[in-house]
């Protein structure tokens, strides 16, 4: 399965590409600008009921009694559910049926690879609380009623008797003996503990000329998708369930839901054509999905359950807050001899993807970027009585970068080196292998550093510093894909059908969450098949299509699915050319296709349109009857070897991405306010399949990154977020954004379709440390906890004076 698809001749043919590398217009643009695009909340069905969830007002309490009688009697109420109605507990990709004691676990490989040296994941979350509630917002009961007001009224009629329990909010308190026990089977509130050593860090520190140790903190960042989580569920008479929802992972989500409902996967149809923002928050089945399916079953009517913005901020997940203590040993020349990291993860009430996120942080960026000679890690993932964070763009990498990249500047200063120079000396190059065993093939890291620095005017501005102005930079290392998230695979399947009129339908398993993935896939299909892109219709976001994919996460969509689409299109083209060859009386090898036309290479005047070939195939005498190409691709990546805790090359992914951001800031010495004047963001994208879409990914990630750096904080106090809507949560608005200069560096990857790599997450990763480094350069204060508020800057500047 390890196809090496980008051949040299293909690379040399770049100038002949019709669609690869072009600023092709989005295939899904028009429905979005006319208001036609239907998101789950826009679905109208006859007799559609509205579902609502009763949530815990307490961070930690035992449920003594629930009485739903009055709610059930309220006119207009069609179904009421409590924990006893849904006897299941689940976590990401894992479920446990409480009545039959049947455990639905992922394939064995999942556990080995993702969880590393940890105990098996535990299904710790009930869709509706069974015995206890563990955070403010935990689901207790649910109703379905004829309208929203009746549903809300019904919730107020549900009587719950609580026994308040002591709650714990700080993970360092939570780990202490005598702390309230949040889950009975998690001693010391330890949700997971990841630790290991590659090489010998003590030896490494002995070899170092300088050893630096610092502690860095990150906070709760909300995904803040413009569309809140939710779904519409509808059962038919045959017991088939249709779910309209907003998901990044339609196929794995279908599996998770079907297993909880104990029905065959083909009885669940997931429809998710339009997703109003996701960023990692929509990779998991939520309690609300299970609740909504059960409500619809009980009410025998379709039900819509949409989280309000307040519920979204209270209970839909966010970025994991980390406290990272990073110890690094370096030689005078800047080479890194050892790195040791201790992390405490504030996991909130349920484990969700906490182990996987931290596993990524520990194995990809920590030992990957700058490749320390020895490495030791220890991460304690600790339950607290707060809302559970989940995966979020970067998946543990922004936290890693916050520590590593801030510390790189501290080290550079102590060594008397320019931070740019220190990074260049430690940059990766093709042929490098990280300590984890990740093989660097294509790599434009040094070029990214040079170009970002140049774009910000680095040398000039570091030399002739203006008062209160500063420049800073930070780098990133990320994977394109992740083997082991769902088993021993990182795979996609696509189908390309040439219809009887020569038009083309592309059935995608991979998902469109706004990134432009479906447009990129259409470009790859058009290029490979030789069709006009306007002749291609892309169908996706539907689990009943003849396609499969693990979903839009880990910057994998265009990278992984691109190769599946390329194979499917090549397969269809083979069939197409054979029919054309029959019609024209030549050999298929003599033919080529371009712009939906097949022609003889030596004599292009002999040609057939795709329409003519389509008619000949479907209705002609050539026994072809249909032109359907199927492509399945699995990345030539490897699983972690359980014995060593490392990978055989190429490692977790078939390729890795690199980048560097440089920013210029101005700090107001009176207020401490940080104004970002410009961001230059250089990325190794492999091949720029569609520069417009790539720029869009970079620009959007920088909006999120600047929020993370400067203003976004869910401010959870005593377990309660002070944020209920966008007036309390400070997303960057249009006037707040600085000019952004995206820089695309093409390293032409040997594995990605036409040489491309994934770029969905990377630009989010280094923004915050680049800003912190620029603030240090501007006014000499090092802010080590996010976000970099004016209070922190001003206080630090005051301290500097004394």
């Amino acid at each position, binding site marked *: 399965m390890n196809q090496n698809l980008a051949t040299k001749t293909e690379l040399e043919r770049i100038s002949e590409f019709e669609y690869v590398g072009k600023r092709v*217009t*989005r295939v*899904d*643009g*028009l*429905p*979005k*600008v*006319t*208001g*036609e*695009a*239907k*998101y789950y*909340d*826009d679905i*109208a069905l006859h007799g559609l009921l509205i579902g609502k969830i009763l949530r815990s007002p307490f961070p930690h309490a035992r449920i003594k009694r629930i009485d739903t009688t009055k709610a059930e009697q309220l006119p207009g109420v069609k179904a009421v559910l409590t924990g006893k109605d849904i006897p299941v507990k689940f976590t990401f990709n894992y479920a446990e049926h409480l009545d039959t004691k049947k455990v639905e676990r992922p394939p064995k490989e999942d556990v080995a690879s993702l969880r590393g040296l940890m105990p098996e994941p535990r299904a710790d979350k009930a869709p509706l609380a069974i015995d206890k509630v563990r955070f403010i917002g935990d689901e207790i009961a649910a109703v379905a009623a004829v309208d929203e007001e009746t549903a809300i009224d019904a919730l107020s009629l549900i009587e719950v008797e609580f026994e308040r329990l002591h709650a714990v909010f700080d993970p360092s308190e939570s780990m202490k003996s005598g702390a309230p026990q949040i889950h009975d089977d998690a001693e010391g509130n330890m949700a997971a503990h990841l630790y290991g050593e590659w090489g010998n860090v003590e030896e490494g520190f002995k070899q170092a000329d300088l050893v630096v140790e610092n502690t860095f903190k990150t906070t709760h960042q909300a*995904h*803040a*998708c*413009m*569309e*809140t989580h939710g779904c519409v569920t509808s059962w038919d008479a045959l017991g088939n369930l249709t779910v309209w929802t907003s998901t990044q992972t339609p196929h794995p989500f279908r599996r998770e839901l079907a297993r909880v409902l104990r029905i065959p996967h083909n009885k669940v149809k997931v429809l998710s054509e*339009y*997703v*109003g*923002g*996701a*960023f990692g928050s929509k990779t998991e089945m939520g309690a609300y999905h299970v609740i909504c399916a059960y409500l619809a079953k009980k009410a025998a009517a379709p039900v819509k359950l*949409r989280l*309000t*913005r*307040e519920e979204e901020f209270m209970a839909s997940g966010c970025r994991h807050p980390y406290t990272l203590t990073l110890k690094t040993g370096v030689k005078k020349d800047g080479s890194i001899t050892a790195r040791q990291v201790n992390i405490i993860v504030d996991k909130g009430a349920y484990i969700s993807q906490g182990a996987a996120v931290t596993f990524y942080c520990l194995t990809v960026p920590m030992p990957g970027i700058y490749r320390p000679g020895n490495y030791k890690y220890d991460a304690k993932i600790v339950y607290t009585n707060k809302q559970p964070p989940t995966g979020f763009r970067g998946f543990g990498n922004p936290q890693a970068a916050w520590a590593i990249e801030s510390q790189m500047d501290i080290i550079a200063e102590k060594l008397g080196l320019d931070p740019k120079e220190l990074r260049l000396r430690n940059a990766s190059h093709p042929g490098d292998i990280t300590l984890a065993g990740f093989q660097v093939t294509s790599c434009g890291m040094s070029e990214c550093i040079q170009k970002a620095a140049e774009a910000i005017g680095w040398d000039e501005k570091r030399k002739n510093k203006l008062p209160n102005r500063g420049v800073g930079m930070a780098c990133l290392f990320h994977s394109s894909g992740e083997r082991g998230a769902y088993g021993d695979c990182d795979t996609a399947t696509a189908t390309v059908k040439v219809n009887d009129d020569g038009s083309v339908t592309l059935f995608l398993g991979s998902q469109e*969450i*706004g*990134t*432009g993935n479906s447009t990129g896939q259409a470009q790859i299909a058009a290029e490979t098949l030789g069709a006009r892109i306007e002749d291609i219709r892309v169908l996706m976001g539907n689990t009943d299509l003849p396609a499969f994919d693990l979903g839009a996460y880990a910057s994998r969509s265009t990278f992984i699915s691109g190769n599946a689409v390329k194979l499917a299109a090549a397969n269809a083209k083979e069939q197409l050319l054979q029919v054309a060859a029959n019609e024209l009386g030549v050999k298929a090898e003599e033919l080529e296709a371009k712009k939906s036309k097949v022609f003889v290479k030596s004599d292009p005047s002999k040609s057939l349109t795709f329409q003519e070939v389509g008619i000949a195939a479907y209705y002609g005498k050539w026994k072809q009857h249909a032109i359907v190409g199927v492509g399945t691709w699995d990345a030539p990546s490897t699983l972690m070897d359980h014995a060593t805790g490392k990978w055989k090359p190429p490692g977790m992914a078939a390729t890795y991405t690199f980048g560097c951001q440089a920013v210029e800031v101005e700090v107001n010495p009176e207020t401490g306010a940080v104004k970002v004047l410009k961001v230059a963001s250089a990325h190794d994208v492999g091949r720029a399949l569609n520069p*417009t*879409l790539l*720029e*869009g990914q970079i*620009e*959007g*990630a*920088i*909006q*999120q990154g600047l929020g993370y750096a400067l203003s976004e904080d869910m401010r959870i106090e005593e377990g309660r977020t002070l944020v209920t*809507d*966008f*007036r309390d949560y400070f*997303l*960057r*608005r*249009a*006037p707040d*954004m600085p000019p*952004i200069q995206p820089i695309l560096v093409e390293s032409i990857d040997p594995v990605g379709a036409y040489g491309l790599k994934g770029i969905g997450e990377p630009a989010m990763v280094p923004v915050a440390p680049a800003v912190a480094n620029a603030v240090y350069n501007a006014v000499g204060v090092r802010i080590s906890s996010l976000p970099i508020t004016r209070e922190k800057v001003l206080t630090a500047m005051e301290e500097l004076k004394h």
Partner: protein
Amino acid sequence: MVQIDLRINGSDQSVMIKPHESLREVLRRIGFTGVKKGCDVGGCGACTVLLNGDPIYSCCVFAAWAQGKDIITIEGLATGGELQPIQQEFATRNAAQCGFCTPGLIMSAKALLDKKEKPTEEEIRRGIAGNLCRCTGYVKVVDAIASASKK
């Protein structure tokens, strides 16, 4: 329920509403689902429509209050199948990623361009300050509006 008359996208409609219903809820209920629901308190701008030419958060206006006023939603922008330049530019310049905030952004941009033919970049950014977008960083959005203003 009470009956009110609303003038939506140039045509008059009699609609049964609850007296406290917001304009957004009524518009969505009768099929104008391009009016998006991103929050519930006037913070995100996804529900922006034009009321007598002014961009407003339709979640913060009672439907009853809109009686007798001219309401334009995203569905009413294209005339006779012909897209407005602003819609065309959003589509071709990748200004709509996930697309959820797009109708609201386009309505705010439309109001801006109706009042000021050639806004500066700063004026464009101020003109859409009431609309949140989590995907684009606003770069392509501003490009699209600037480009539409030249058409």
